[in-house]
């Protein structure tokens, strides 16, 4: 399974998003990234979830980081995030 699909599956399971967009930005970073060029190293995530209501930005990022612990420690070098509660979207 692709890294992107794994990320989506894990976030779906952990956060039940009402909206999720995951963009692969790896190509933009191929020039400076010194690790293995797998084509799945840099991502941008936009995710709307009820689970973020009442949570600070730091807490929201930590929820995603927790769900994607293995990916962030492994193949994923960078993940930009925009995390919103439904009333902010």
């Amino acid at each position, binding site marked *: 399974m692709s890294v992107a699909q794994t990320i989506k599956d894990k976030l779906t399971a952990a956060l039940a998003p009402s909206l999720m967009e995951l963009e692969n930005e790896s190509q933009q970073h191929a020039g400076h990234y010194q690790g293995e060029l797998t084509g799945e190293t840099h991502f941008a995530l936009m995710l709307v979830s009820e689970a973020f209501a009442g949570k600070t*930005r730091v807490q929201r990022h930590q929820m995603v980081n927790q769900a994607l612990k293995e990916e962030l420690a492994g193949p994923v070098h960078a993940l930009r995030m925009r995390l919103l509660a439904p009333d902010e979207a």
Partner: protein
Amino acid sequence: MSEQTQAQIDSIVKNNDVVLFMKGTLNFPQCGFSSGVAQLLQFLQIEAQDVNVLDSDELRQGIKDYSNWPTIPQLYVKGEFVGGFDIVKEMFESGEFYGMLEDKAISYKRPAASE
């Protein structure tokens, strides 16, 4: 993380009003995300202490454990973890960043163009 590293980080965070743990230095950032936050601090003329995590593997891992935050850069203001690049950027774009600086009595120069 060793207790010594923990104590060292804690001391840096608590003894400086604005601290940026980053890859490289404020004047010579070595990562796009570190550079983004460094440029914002400089743009707003905020006096900040930089800590180059590339100088020390212990610091590089230690700061990740310190705030349970897996990435660098990390911005701290008055002892409190504010966030990494995405959060700082969002707060700046929404104007919340100014509110946070004012709440914490950090001196900065608001760019004229944003009035």
